[in-house]
C-alpha cells in the first residue's frame, strides 16, 4: 500500500506547488491523477518517486518512508529518455547492475518479449519510432519488477492511434504481475480507460478537488455510453477547477466565463 500524508512542496523559488495532499493507493490498484497544467500533478509523482524532497508530510510505501528513489518504485517519464549510446537491450538492463550477466540478459529478453520488441534488442534508440521508444522505457521500468509503477503523462507525446495501442498494452502489462500504478495525465479518456480511481487536482496551489471511482467493468470500450457519461462528468469537474482559479484573478470577471 502506498500512502501520502499531508504532503506539500514549496520550491526554492517560493512557488507552492502542492499542499495538504492525503492519498492512499491499494496494492495493485490503478490510480489516475488528472488536472490542468500547474496543478502539481507532476510534482506529486516526483515526490512519490523520491526525486524531490517534500516540504512537509511524507510518502510511505508498505510501512517505510520514501526519501530517495527506490528499486520497488519504477517511473516512466513523458519522453522515453533512453540513453542514446546504449542499445535497446542495454537501456532496459541499465538498472539491473547487481544481477549476474546471464540473469540480467534473461530478465531483459523476457521483458522485451512482453513489450513486443524482442527483435529490436540490438537496435539503437535513434532507430525506434516514438511508440516503440516509449515501450522500451516501459520495459526499463518493468524489468526491475517494481511494486509501484509511476507514469508521468507517458503517452501524451504520441499520436492518437499509438496512444490507444499503448494504453491497451499497458493494461496487458499490468495484468502480468499487477503492480500498483499511479498515472498522471491530462487526458480524461485515458484516465477512464485505465484507472480504478480518478483524482482531480485543483491548481495553485495543487490540492485534491474530487475523487471518483467510476466502477467501469474491464475490458473497457472507449465508446461505452457509461464511459462517455463519466467523461462529461469529469470534464465538468475540471472546468470547475479552472473557474476556481479564474475567479481569483480580476481580469476574468465571472460573467465573462
Amino acid at each position, binding site marked *: 500500500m502506498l500512502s501520502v500524508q499531508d504532503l506539500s512542496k514549496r520550491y526554492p523559488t517560493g512557488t507552492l506547488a502542492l499542499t495538504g495532499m492525503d492519498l492512499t493507493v491499494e496494492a495493485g490498484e490503478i490510480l489516475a491523477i488528472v488536472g490542468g497544467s500547474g496543478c502539481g500533478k507532476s510534482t506529486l509523482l516526483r515526490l512519490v*518517486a523520491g*526525486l524531490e524532497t517534500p516540504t512537509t508530510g511524507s510518502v510511505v510505501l508498505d510501512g517505510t518512508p520514501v526519501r*530517495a*528513489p*527506490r*528499486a520497488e518504485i519504477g*517511473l516512466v*517519464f513523458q*519522453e522515453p*529518455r533512453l*540513453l*542514446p*549510446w*546504449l542499445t535497446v537491450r542495454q537501456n532496459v538492463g*541499465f*538498472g539491473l547492475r547487481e544481477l549476474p550477466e546471464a540473469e540480467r540478459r534473461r530478465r531483459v529478453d523476457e521483458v522485451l518479449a512482453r513489450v*513486443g520488441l524482442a*527483435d*529490436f534488442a*540490438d*537496435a*539503437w*534508440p*535513434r*532507430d*525506434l*519510432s516514438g*511508440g*516503440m521508444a516509449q*515501450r522500451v522505457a516501459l520495459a526499463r521500468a518493468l524489468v526491475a519488477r517494481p511494486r509501484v509503477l509511476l507514469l508521468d503523462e507517458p503517452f501524451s507525446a504520441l499520436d492518437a*492511434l*499509438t496512444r*490507444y*495501442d*499503448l494504453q*491497451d*498494452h499497458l493494461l*496487458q502489462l499490468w495484468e502480468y504481475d499487477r503492480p500498483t500504478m499511479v498515472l498522471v495525465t491530462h487526458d480524461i479518456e485515458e484516465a477512464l480507460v485505465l484507472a480504478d480511481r480518478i483524482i482531480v487536482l485543483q491548481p495553485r496551489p495543487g490540492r485534491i478537488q474530487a475523487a471518483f471511482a467510476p466502477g467501469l467493468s474491464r475490458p473497457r470500450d472507449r465508446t461505452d455510453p457509461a464511459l462517455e457519461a463519466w467523461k462529461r462528468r469529469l470534464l465538468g469537474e475540471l472546468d470547475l477547477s479552472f473557474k476556481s482559479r479564474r475567479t481569483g484573478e480580476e481580469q476574468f470577471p465571472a460573467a465573462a466565463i
Partner: protein
Amino acid sequence: MALTERIAAPLPATAAPSSRPSWRWALGLVVPVALALGWEAAVALGWVNGRLLPPPSRVLATLWGLALSGELIVHVLATLWRVALGFVFGVVAGTVLGALTGYAPLARAMLDPMVQALRSIPSIAWVPLFILWFGIFETSKVTLIATGVFFPIYLALSDAILSVDRKLVEVGRIHRLSGPELVWRILLPAALPSYVTALRAGLGLGWMFVVAAEFMGASEGLGYLLVDGQMTGAAPVIMASILCFAVLGKVTDRLLGALATPFLRWQDGFGTRR
C-alpha cells in the same frame, strides 16, 4: 500492440553499407598532386629559384637520403615520443580536472577561475620558466606539450558535462546511481562526442608545441631538423621536415578518429550516419 507492429520502422541495419565508392579517398589527392607537379614544372622551366623553393623531387630525394642514413627515423621517433608523452599527460590532467569541475560545483567554483586565467597566458610564454625549472632536456619539452594539450580537453569536457541533458541525469537518479557511477555511466558517455573532438584538437596542439619545444634547444627531432636546415641554408631539409609533420599529424589524427569510432556509432547527426 498489433497496430504498432504494423507501423513499426523497418529493422535497423546493423552495419549500414557505405554509400561512398572506395575510390573517393583519391579525390583528396588531386589538388596536392597537381600543385606539386606545377611546382616541379615551374622550377624545371626556370620560372622560380629552385634553391630557396626546392622542387618536390629534391625534397623527396633529401627525405630519402635522410631515411637511408638512418637519421630520419631518429628524428621522427624523438618527436613522436615527446608528442606521445605530452599528449598522455595533458589528456590525463585535462580529463580528471575537466570531469571534476564539470561534475562538482564546489570544484568548479574553486578551480575553474584559476584554470581560465592560466589559459589566457600564451603557452609559449612558459618556455623560459620551464627551462629554468626543468632544464633544457626532455622534461621541459614534454611539460610544454602537455600544457598545450591540457586546455582544450579541460574546457571541452567540463563544458560538455555541464550541458548534459538534465533529463538523462534524472534517469540515473531514478536508478540510484552513486556520484562516480553517474559520471561513468551517464555524464562521460553523453560528453564523449565533444571529448573526442577535443582530443583531436589537443593532439593538433601537441604537434604545434613540439616544434616550439624543439626550437628551444634539441639535438634531435623534426623541430631540430627544421632549425638545422635553416642554419645550413638547406631548404630541402626544412621542406622534408615539414612534410614529415604533415604526414605524422594526419596519420595520428586519423588513428585517434578510428579508435574513437566504435564508441560513437550511436550518434544520430547529419554527418555521422552517412
